[in-house]
């Protein structure tokens, strides 16, 4: 069944890499919109933060996907082989989901910080004075 195992690795590798690339590109495209809103006065900063976040996303996810590749019992037949493949992809997808939500949390935190920084006074003034 060694050939089947290699086939599983090839399918897994292709799916994992294309999944990570697709996710990272989606993150990059939408992250730009998000961060440009946060760093309104510094568009270059938005690009830099976004790129760095995406690079981290690539390293973490590709590394994790590769680590997940080996392991598991040798499949004895085709059913076991497809089960192994599906299990590996399932673990990968679930982990990517968790990492994605951590990423969203980071974005949200950055935005929240910015909103607090530029917040207007939360209470109405009672009067106005000429002496300041």
């Amino acid at each position, binding site marked *: 069944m060694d050939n089947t195992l290699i086939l599983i690795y090839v399918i897994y590798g292709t799916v994992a890499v294309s999944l990570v690339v697709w996710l990272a590109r989606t993150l990059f495209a939408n992250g730009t919109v998000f961060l440009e809103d946060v760093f309104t006065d510094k568009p270059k900063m938005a690009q830099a933060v976004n790129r760095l976040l995406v690079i981290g996303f690539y390293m973490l996810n590709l590394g994790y996907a590769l680590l997940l590749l080996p392991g598991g019992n040798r499949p004895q037949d085709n059913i076991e082989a497809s089960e192994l493949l599906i299990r590996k992809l399932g673990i990968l997808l679930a982990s990517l989901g968790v990492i994605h939500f951590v990423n969203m949390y980071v974005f949200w935190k950055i935005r929240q910080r910015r909103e*607090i*920084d*530029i*917040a*207007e*006074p*939360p*209470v*109405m*003034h*009672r*009067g*106005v*004075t*000429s*002496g*300041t």
Partner: protein
Amino acid sequence: MTLTGITVIYDETCALCRRSAHWLMTEKAHIPLQILAAGSPAARAHFGDIPVLGDDLVVIGSDGRVWWGSPDAYIMALWALRKWRPWAIRLARPGMRRLAAAVFKRVSTHRKAIGAILGEPYCVDCAKRPAHRL
């Protein structure tokens, strides 16, 4: 309009207020804070037209807006501080506002008594210190 700084005027005749003024000065702030004693010549000269000066906490914005009393002035003082701005925003919401008003009002009314229990801040004339961390 965005504020570029605020002035906080406190009642220097009460120990709790001196203590709080000192605390305000040591906290990191979003915008420059100027802290004045209500009886100081600077406060009298610039803000003598504010009727409650000395009776209650007064906060003056760089654009001349004035907040006083509970809970507005207290919320504004917190709003200027980095660590406390999220709390200021929370306390200003309708539900929390009433609670905040009650608490600050009570503390303000009994400030002399509370100050007597807590005692003096560890530096007596610290409120005169002009330097402020941002």
